[in-house]
């Protein structure tokens, strides 16, 4: 299977590709430029799929749902205002679609809020085995903590710790009050602290 590589040359001339802003790409996509949209998908696919994965707990579902999300975003572009930041808007659409999906799942199977996170091979950027082992343990621990959180908490935590979004951006993305964002983060910290203590990693 060939992997198709897309690039978007900003100027027709040869030379390095300057970085076009998300908002500009979204604006061009709105005007019918599909290549611009493909660049946006390339930029955000990892973030979106990993966020969705943390919310639904299954990798294949995350991939399928993310495709739906990017399709939906494309079709909703006429409702996006390029004067406003793109990233929170993208996450707003994404989380809404995921919540819809979770609600449908709950109606059908009455699944509890906590999900089983299926183990996958993680990207490793570490060198020595001890570091690797400890990192592995911490990673598993944090995955458990996150999986045990209700979906709304999970979204806040992932946007904060994976996407490095500010509290304000998270509040805008999820359409919740700033205070709620902070409370969720504090709760996550406390749970994580308790988990680390339980595992005996607090010296």
């Amino acid at each position, binding site marked *: 299977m060939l992997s198709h590589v897309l690039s978007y040359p900003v100027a027709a001339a040869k030379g390095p590709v300057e970085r076009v802003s998300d908002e500009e790409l979204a604006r061009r996509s709105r005007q019918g430029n599909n290549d611009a949209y*493909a660049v946006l998908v390339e930029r955000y696919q990892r973030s979106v799929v990993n966020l969705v994965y943390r919310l639904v707990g299954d990798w294949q579902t995350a991939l399928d749902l993310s495709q739906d999300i990017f399709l939906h975003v494309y079709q909703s572009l006429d409702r996006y205002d390029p004067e406003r930041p793109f990233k929170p808007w993208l996450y707003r659409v994404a989380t809404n679609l995921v919540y819809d999906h979770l609600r449908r799942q709950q109606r059908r199977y009455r699944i509890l809020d906590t999900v089983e996170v299926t183990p996958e091979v993680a990207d490793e950027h570490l060198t020595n085995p001890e570091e690797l082992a400890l*990192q592995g343990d*911490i990673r598993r621990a944090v*995955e458990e903590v996150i999986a045990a959180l209700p979906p709304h908490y999970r979204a806040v935590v992932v946007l*904060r710790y994976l996407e490095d979004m500010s509290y304000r951006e998270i509040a805008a993305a999820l359409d919740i009050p700033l205070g709620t964002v902070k409370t969720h983060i*504090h709760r996550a910290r406390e749970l*994580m602290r308790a988990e680390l203590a339980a595992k005996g990693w607090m010296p």
Partner: protein
Amino acid sequence: MSTHLSEEILHAYLDGDLAWEARQRVREHVRTCGVCRRRLEDLRRAEYALRQIPTFTVPANFTAQVMQRIRTASTPPWRQRSFVWAAHGLVLVGGLLLALAVAESVPFSALAEQGFSLLTLDPTFLIDPLLLLDAMAGVFAHAVDGLMQVGETVVPLGMGLLALGSFLEMVHWLSTMASEPSSKEPLTEVRPWA
């Protein structure tokens, strides 16, 4: 005063939410209070751990699949491949049924007889080849009659399917005349990274 720092204060400190003076007070306090220093360090460690959420690589064809879905979604139904094949199928089946219906009808038992004599190569056929041809025509006619026994629904059914199929073909053909070609383009272009 030997009061300890509240959890709220510690969280706010980590959030960067405290004014300069309040921050200074916290720093001063943890310098001397071992308990609160421990609590702050524990929360810091929790912060660090939370940043260790594993992330995974998305398959290489993800973007291509998204763009394909966009294309399909923006292609009207009468331009899609499945529509064209459905039209072809209807025309074929309808036409076949009609073709069979116009052929002559002969009962099945006679079919079996003639077929058998053909297979055993009755010596009379060697004498007169015309008899052989006649026998073969008889076999074919017997087959058609067998189908005709199925009912008089064959003719109207055949006509209906043929008409419907032809209509769909025409709709598709007209739509290709009306607009620029879109769904037949290659999925993505491979371009060198600049």
